[in-house]
């Protein structure tokens, strides 16, 4: 019984280490090939459109609703204290520092990351990745680099957009429900925000973007079997991205807390 337990734990740890090793290896190669000739602008643009532009509707929906919900929940507490004025600053700071980056990253991991794993996984099972190599193209450069670079660039932009919409959501509640004037709300929001809030919020999203791209590509390349394998890898990619985004967020929040107290 104990031996079995130890063995199970040992296997899980070994699998975890194997995965981390694979990720570091893929990350290093993706980084290396990002700066190597030839540079493929067309594919980068295509991936940026898929990751960025096409994600706008869902990011708009989620972030504005989060702003509305957050303002309502804060109002519920603040009304007891008669301090509704603080809602604006609370919504702005929470959106920019935390909710915008994390919620957007999770949405993108589910929407874009899953699609990357399914696409690369299908290419793997139909031997398209082997074909790519036999035609003298490096799969890392051809498939991973455009996704890696586009997600690292697009996620911060999406988060900036989500921050604005989140604040807009809060504005809707405060102006139309609580009767705070529009200019007052905006002034309170922007007075509460410092550059460091925006910068720390955006820096981590570059890493979230890289994590989503690497995890999704890694699981795609490691698909085994047919359709079932692709489904399995997609599920694993999304779950792993979620876990890594949350843990990385925790790490960065702690880091920034000590660097910029």
């Amino acid at each position, binding site marked *: 019984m104990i031996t079995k337990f130890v063995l199970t734990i040992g296997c899980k740890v070994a699998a975890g280490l194997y995965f981390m090793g694979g990720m570091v290896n893929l990350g290093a190669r993706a980084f290396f090939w990002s700066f190597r000739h*030839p540079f493929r602008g067309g594919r980068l643009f295509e991936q940026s459109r898929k990751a960025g532009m096409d994600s706008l509707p869902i990011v708009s929906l989620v972030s504005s609703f989060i702003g509305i919900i957050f303002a309502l929940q804060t109002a519920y507490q603040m009304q007891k204290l008669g301090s509704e004025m603080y809602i604006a600053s609370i919504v702005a700071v929470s959106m920019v520092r935390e909710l915008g980056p994390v919620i957007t990253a999770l949405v993108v991991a589910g929407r874009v990351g899953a699609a990357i794993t399914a696409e690369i996984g299908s*290419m793997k099972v*139909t*031997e*398209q990745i*082997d*074909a*790519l*190599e*036999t*035609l*003298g*193209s*490096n799969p890392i450069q*051809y498939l991973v680099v455009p996704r890696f670079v586009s997600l690292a660039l697009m996620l911060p932009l999406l988060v900036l957009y989500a921050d604005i919409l989140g604040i807009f959501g809060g504005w809707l509640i405060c102006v139309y429900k609580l009767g705070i004037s529009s200019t007052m709300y905006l002034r309170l929001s922007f007075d509460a925000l410092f550059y460091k809030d925006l910068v720390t919020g955006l820096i981590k999203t570059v890493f979230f973007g890289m994590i989503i791209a690497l995890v999704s590509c890694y699981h795609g390349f490691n698909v085994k079997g047919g359709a079932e394998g692709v489904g399995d890898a997609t599920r694993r990619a999304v779950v792993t991205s979620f876990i890594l985004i949350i843990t990385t967020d925790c790490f960065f929040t702690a880091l920034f807390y000590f660097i910029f107290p």
Partner: protein
Amino acid sequence: MINIKGLSKSFESHQVLDSLDLTVATGVTLVVLGRSGCGKSVLLKHIVGLLRPESGEVFIDGEDIWKLRDSRMDALRMKMGMVFQGGALFDSLTVGENVGFSYIEHMDYFKLSKKEIENRVTESLEMVGLSGIENEMPSELSGGMKKRVSLARAICTKPDIILYDEPTTGVDPITADVINELIRGLHDVLKVTSIVVTHDMRSAYKVADRIAMMYKGKIIAEGTPGDIQNTQNPVVYQFINGLAKGPITDDINHTV
């Protein structure tokens, strides 16, 4: 010339290639026969450098491919074409982009203009009996057409070596014969060195200069089609005549 020495590979505990030796002279079409799952595709993937052997070497024109730098290996791959079992066409690209993939991706290497690439693509498609489908997507094609487009992609860069992984499996008899004629034509006209992996005996006799039989990870017999037809080896005899009873099936029954 392709020279394979002592090639071994196993997946988990299953030994797929076991100290396999094989030589294919320049300009020769060699057919490798063997049952499904006996490791024929694995052998091809070692030749083109997709799989790393556990032991043994693969020499192409005297160069050990696993000792080459990446850039040299890529250059070597430009001289090789491979036709995959399921076609392996890139489904996000059109037929034309698939066929001209190497030219488009390696413009610095080939130095061809857009017009020249288009001409080469049309020419390659015509060679496999297809025309006017450059702008279609692979998903719109039938299985046989996909295979022919895959063949067009492999021959587009006029390679010296072409590897075929079951080129006639899953296509109708007429298309199969078109493919056989094409393999033969490439051999006669362009003096291409080819390895054709198949279990289609009709195709084997039609295209082969030499035939090798793979069994239990080794090449157990090799010779001209005439030698193989007159074989004394019971394993080869059972395979080429498609008999349900014989040493191959006895072996399976024993292991079960």
